[in-house]
């Protein structure tokens, strides 16, 4: 990314508060979300006016994004602002803890922002209302047009402080935007913020595109395009829009993903009716064959340490999930349950593999340990597939299609997310129908 987004972090309070009482457990479904008050950020009167942004409303808008992020986790219950008991600027200096406790809040977020010399400065504090203590205080300086990202970064910092795990709000989702009748579907690559804002279309829809996936630095995307009616794996630079075909294969290449170091693309190559798994080094252009089997081998996904690959194969007769070393040796089948299994994706934490399971005409999204034990099915539907992990390995995004009537009436494809606890299933709103979502890593690490 040429346009480097500079964010300056300043810790106002360098000593973390170790004896805070509130802590949110995200390892199980949370039926009792933490009541949190997000005070609108105070806008300093001295702030410069901005061309495209209403500076007076910016404080409210930032807090609204934070609230929406929190609500979407199912772990927090942002309280209604009408009940708030203190003015934003005063609360930010020193909350009256007992008054905030009266409205049943357990945590409070306060902040202020200002614009000077075309720089946006945002400061926030998180308060533990039970212990009457400040938990974090941070300030950021950036260009004003980055204000949404600041709201997401603040959300991540608070999530991290309260759950003990990294957040996933300052992220993007790349997906396939769909329109038109089912038998002539127009598909475009689209990218948006994790909360559905700032949608941008990356292709025009002249050719069929499928299965986009980010590289680890989120600047490149690999995907399948039917450009000139030759289905091949492509590489796209999001910033420059430059596209190139990956390798020079005499047949269809598909199901691409990056290696965890971003140096290789792993994909399937189909020839004479047989699909095997190959890698191509993006720098040296060296192509390596990973599997050699007369069955279909596809949907490869690396473990985060790059040592293993999980993939989908029908070598046993029907689709099952296998794990092998990254050089293709030591192939082991890991799924033995009833039904068929596809789309394995290794969790960024390394512990789990997410998958799609089909059984008795129903589709499930599930997770299992990387040795195939501990299978848990999270959600069941008429059709859903293609899970992709949030960068902290706690949430999956996938797509779901509805049953259609004559001429495809009633057909839709939408993005959904679910926690790996099996709770908190949610629609992710998109401008158009959508499929094949892929979640980026954290944009600011």
């Amino acid at each position, binding site marked *: 990314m040429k346009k480097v987004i500079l964010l300056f972090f300043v810790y106002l309070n360098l000593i973390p508060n170790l004896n805070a009482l509130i802590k949110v457990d995200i390892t199980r479904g949370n039926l009792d979300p933490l009541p949190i008050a997000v005070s609108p950020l105070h806008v300093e009167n001295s702030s410069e006016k901005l061309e495209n942004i209403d500076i007076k409303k910016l404080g409210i808008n930032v807090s609204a994004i934070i609230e929406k992020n929190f609500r979407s986790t199912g772990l927090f219950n942002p309280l209604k602002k009408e009940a708030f008991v203190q003015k934003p600027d005063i609360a930010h200096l020193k909350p009256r803890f007992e008054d905030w406790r009266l409205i049943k809040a357990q945590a409070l977020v306060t902040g202020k922002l200002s614009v000077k010399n075309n720089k946006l400065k945002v400061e926030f504090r998180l308060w533990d209302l039970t212990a009457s203590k400040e938990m974090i205080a941070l300030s950021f300086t950036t260009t004003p047009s980055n204000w949404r990202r600041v709201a997401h970064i603040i959300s991540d910092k608070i999530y991290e402080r309260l759950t003990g795990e990294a957040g996933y709000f300052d992220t993007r989702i790349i997906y396939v935007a769909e329109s038109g*009748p*089912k*038998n*002539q*579907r127009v598909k475009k690559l689209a990218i948006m913020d994790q909360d559905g804002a700032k949608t941008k279309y990356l292709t025009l829809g002249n050719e*069929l595109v*499928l*299965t986009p996936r980010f590289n680890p630095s989120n600047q490149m995307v690999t995907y*399948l395009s039917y450009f000139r*009616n030759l*289905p091949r794996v492509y590489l796209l630079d999001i910033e420059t829009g430059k596209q190139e075909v990956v390798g020079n294969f005499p*047949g*269809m290449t*598909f*199901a691409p993903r990056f290696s965890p170091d971003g140096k290789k693309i792993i994909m*399937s190559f*189909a020839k*004479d*009716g*047989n*699909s095997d798994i190959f890698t191509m080094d993006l720098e040296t252009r060296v192509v390596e064959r990973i599997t050699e089997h007369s069955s*279909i081998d*596809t*949907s490869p996904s690396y473990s985060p340490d790059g040592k293993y690959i999980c993939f*989908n194969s*029908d070598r046993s007769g*029907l*689709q099952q999930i296998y794990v092998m070393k990254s050089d293709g040796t030591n192939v082991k089948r890991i799924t033995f349950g009833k039904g068929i299994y*596809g*789309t394995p994706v290794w969790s960024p934490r390394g512990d789990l593999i997410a998958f*799609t399971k*089909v059984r008795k*005409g129903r589709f499930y999204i599930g997770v299992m340990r990387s040795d195939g034990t501990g299978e848990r099915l999270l959600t069941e539907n*008429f*059709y859903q*597939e*293609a899970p992709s992990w949030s960068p902290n390995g706690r949430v999956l995004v996938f797509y779901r*299609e509805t*049953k*259609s*009537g*004559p*001429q*495809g009436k009633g*057909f839709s494809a939408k993005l959904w997310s679910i926690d790996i606890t099996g709770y908190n299933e949610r629609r992710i709103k998109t401008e158009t129908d959508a*499929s*094949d979502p892929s979640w980026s890593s954290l944009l600011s690490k």
Partner: protein
Amino acid sequence: MKFNKNLRNIFLILFATLALSACSTAKKSQTTGDVYTGSDTVEYLASGVKDRVFFATNKSSLTSASRETLRKQATYLRKNKKLNVTIEGHADERGTREYNLALGERRANAVKDYLMTYGISGKRISVISYGKERPVNSESTPLAWSQNRRSVTVKVK
């Protein structure tokens, strides 16, 4: 009363028979196993030469009816030596996208291989898989899915 009851029974039996026969003829004329055997979506390369063959779920093996269709295609291609074709392989919507792409490719190649055994040069035949992306019948029913599991031979212009 008795007459009425008899009459009602007769109607019931008649109705049941009609319903059953309607049901069985519908099934008989549409699919065998779950391979589509009807002709609703079929187009023709030339008179009597069907352009497509159908497959069972998750399978790429050719039925005897498919082989008969392909023998006719081979005859047609032998007569029209300058004609090249593309075989499109398709899957139904009931499988994961990436696997379906591979399956469509496998189905298209099953057709290509069979045409080649009848002396058609592989150079005249290209294959492309659309996976589940281009259904011919957009409905979500077993009949539609059977029509969508297909390989279509398309003339290259």
